């Protein structure tokens, strides 16, 4: 520095000073950034997009999809890109350029999308930056629309929830609405099915193009898990068809069929007479969109007599062949009970009382239990307790505390009036008897399947022992007696031994009192080794009750269940008790 001449030195000094000024300013703007300009600039460029998670599916017991999300596209348009023009260039398949007028393009699009050209014109032309042209379009139609190459028209990927089997199991599967899941397992299992959305954060420039080598954060998306049900799709359809036919035949309010596997508690079919098609829920009325088998409770009637008998036998108060002298009326505690039909004095065994569904005899048997005992036995068999299937709107029915029972109700509960329960409750009572006295929890959701395919079976726990094996076997024989000698004969099968009980209960009217009846048929088959329970319930059938036979639906459904599962026909004669002495 000291070697250079004066002018050069002065120049160097000025240059250094300027450089220092520049350096300080640079440090100020870039390093200190007191106005936060750098941050604001990055914030302008930063874009976060969410990557939606793929919703899990709902499968039936054999792996068929009852609900599945598929890829669809929304055709959207940026109207600003086609302003002020009336034609655009496009390549023909031969590679030549041609000019396509908007009118021609609208004609092509209307043929593809099935809308008329005026609607398309209104949705495509304008000044908005974003407008829908068509929604949930299949990939093939999307390809065709994009091939028209209308300026500004592009496709956004979206998903559509499809229910390939439609109304089969529709009441169980549920459906989605615009705000998310609305009903059924779609709603209650939403946390499992929905998964977690991911996000991508990146920077885009002013022209909308992504800036490479800039911020690139990626939160991976977690797809939803699928759930596998115990429902068999084909049996469900068969049961739905059968009960719909019978409900229509009797002009009833509703009907349902519940089929339960005895050894596991798996619900194989839960069919309603009117089922919603989740693809189009609006087509069904609002109160028919749920599974009535678990949401609608009714007074069960005579199917409850099996609990009275089982309790009395277990308590050692009676045996299946205990003799009872029965008149048409029976009075106890100032309450008189009569049977469904007039009869003289009968000499019936306990099995005979069950076979002919005699209220008088049932009260004679059940009065030997204290009210608390009656209540406890009902609770042990699951009446008034939560079912736990996981469906929304599920009800546990109504079983009042014994202290609240009035002097009549304490006896009517013995034959199923004065309490309410659902069809599934009835099925689980008979499942207990069929399973040698061990009550299991009803299983609807069998397992969850991860996005990577791993299956996790849901454990429903051990069952609870309700009655001893011996008692259960005796009650099974009594039920077979009902089928062979009594009211259960309407559901008897040709090739299989059946044990069943019918029920005809007065249906409480919403205005107080009773109005109409609820008929039911609960059956177990085959009695040589009970495997399946089916319960048919029909609410308020019209016409002469003599001709109302829910047993017919039981026959159809149970035979279908047994032949589907290749159950060998029963060999040997039915094992029954004498009904009279």
């Amino acid at each position, binding site marked *: 520095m000291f070697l250079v001449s004066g002018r050069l030195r002065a120049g160097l000094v000025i240059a250094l000073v300027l450089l220092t000024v520049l350096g300080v300013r640079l440090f100020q703007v870039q390093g200190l950034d007191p106005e936060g300009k750098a941050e604001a600039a990055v914030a302008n460029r930063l874009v976060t*997009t969410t990557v939606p998670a793929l919703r899990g599916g709902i499968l039936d017991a054999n792996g*068929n*999809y009852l609900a*599945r999300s*598929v*890829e669809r596209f929304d055709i959207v348009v940026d109207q600003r890109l086609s302003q002020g023009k009336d034609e655009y260039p*496009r*390549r*023909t*398949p031969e*590679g030549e350029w041609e000019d396509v007028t908007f009118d*021609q393009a609208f004609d*092509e699009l209307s*043929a*593809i*999308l*099935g*809308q008329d050209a005026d*609607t398309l014109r*209104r*949705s495509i032309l304008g000044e908005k930056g974003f407008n829908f*042209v*068509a*929604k*949930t*379009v*299949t*990939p*093939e*139609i999307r390809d*065709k629309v*994009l*091939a028209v*190459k209308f300026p500004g028209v592009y496709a*956004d*990927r979206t998903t*559509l929830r*499809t*229910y*390939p*089997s*439609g*109304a*089969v199991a529709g009441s169980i599967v549920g459906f989605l609405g615009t705000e998310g899941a609305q009903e059924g397992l779609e709603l209650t299992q939403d946390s499992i099915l929905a998964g977690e959305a991911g996000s*991508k954060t990146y920077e885009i420039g002013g022209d909308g193009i992504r800036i490479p080598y800039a911020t690139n954060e990626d939160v991976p998306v977690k797809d939803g898990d699928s759930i596998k049900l115990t429902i068999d*799709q084909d049996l469900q*359809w*068969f049961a*739905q*068809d059968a009960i*719909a036919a019978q409900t*229509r035949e009797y002009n009833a309010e509703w009907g349902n069929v519940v089929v339960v596997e005895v050894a596991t508690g798996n619900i194989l079919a839960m069919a309603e007479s009117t089922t919603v*098609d989740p*693809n*189009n829920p609006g*087509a069904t009325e609002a109160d028919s969109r749920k599974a009535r088998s678990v949401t609608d409770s009714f007074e069960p009637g005579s199917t409850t007599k099996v609990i009275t008998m089982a309790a009395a036998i277990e308590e050692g108060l009676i045996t299946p062949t205990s003799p009872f002298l029965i008149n048409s009326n029976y009075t106890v505690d100032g309450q008189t009970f009569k049977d469904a039909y007039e009869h003289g004095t009968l000499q019936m065994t306990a099995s005979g009382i069950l076979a002919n569904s005699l209220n008088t005899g049932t009260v004679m048997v059940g009065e030997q239990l204290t009210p608390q005992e009656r209540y406890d036995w009902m609770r042990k068999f699951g009446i008034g307790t939560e079912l736990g299937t996981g469906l929304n709107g599920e009800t546990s029915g109504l079983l009042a505390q014994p202290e609240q029972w009035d002097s009549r109700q304490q006896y009517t509960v013995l034959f199923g009036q004065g309490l309410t329960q659902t069809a599934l409750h009835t099925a689980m009572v008979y499942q207990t008897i069929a399973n040698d006295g061990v009550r299991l929890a009803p299983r609807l959701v069998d397992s969850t399947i991860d996005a990577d395919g791993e299956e996790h079976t849901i454990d429903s726990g051990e069952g609870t022992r309700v009655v001893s094996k011996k008692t259960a076997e005796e009650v099974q024989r009594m039920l077979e007696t009902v089928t062979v000698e009594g009211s259960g004969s309407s559901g008897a099968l040709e*090739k299989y031994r059946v044990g069943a009980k019918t029920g005809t209960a007065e249906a409480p009217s919403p205005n107080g009192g009773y109005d109409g009846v609820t008929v039911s048929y609960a059956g177990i088959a085959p009695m040589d080794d009970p495997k399946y329970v089916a319960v048919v319930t029909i609410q308020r059938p019209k016409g002469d009750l003599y001709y109302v036979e829910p047993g017919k639906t039981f026959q159809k459904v149970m035979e279908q269940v047994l*032949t589907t599962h290749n159950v*060998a*026909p029963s060999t040997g004669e039915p094992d029954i008790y004498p009904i009279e002495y």
Partner: protein
Amino acid sequence: MTEETRRRRPAAPLRAVQGNLARSEQWEPAEPQVPAPRRRTPLSLVPAAARRRRVPVAALCFAVLALGLAAVLLLNISVSSGQYQLVQLQNQRTELVQKNEALTQQVENHQAPQVLAATAAELGMVASPSFGTIDLQTLAVTGNPEPAKEGTKREALIGLPQVLTQPVTPAQAQPAEPEKPVENVRAAEAQDSAPAAADASPEAPAPATPEADLNGGTIPAPSQRSGQ
């Protein structure tokens, strides 16, 4: 050696000393009594040891540089062409996945129990009224299964699945275009199975085939995905 020196320094005079060799030569001393002044050995260029023929270093460096550049170029070309292949395969994959999806939906539709039953009914099939049993151990047939008789078609009480396959027109703010329930019409029509990926819309006047637009080249452009 003499020849070499001659080659190297043709103009140099003969000297009394050649390198470090003294020549023993007869010569007349100019002053026999005066001792010769001590002379420093004059410095002269010594030919180096014989060198083998080698490529000059510069050329070697150039060669290495050229090779390096060529390698980088080749690498880039292969990566780029691999990238083109990748894009092409990804496009193919997307296309196949979509085709697979469409066919799967068709299969699911055919597998739906009510559709199966309807198709069977159309073929004239009826439910079997009786069944027999074959014991697989003893091969004995029990029961008396009878051949099914022709029956009348029962009305289907469970509707066909109304899976949405047609585009949905969004509700416009202008003069109402009601949302077309096209899918319901399709389902309510004849009982033949509704194709899940329907392409029922008439082809004319369809535009150019929806093949990948090659823009005059041979390699299709990668498909943009929104948000990428």
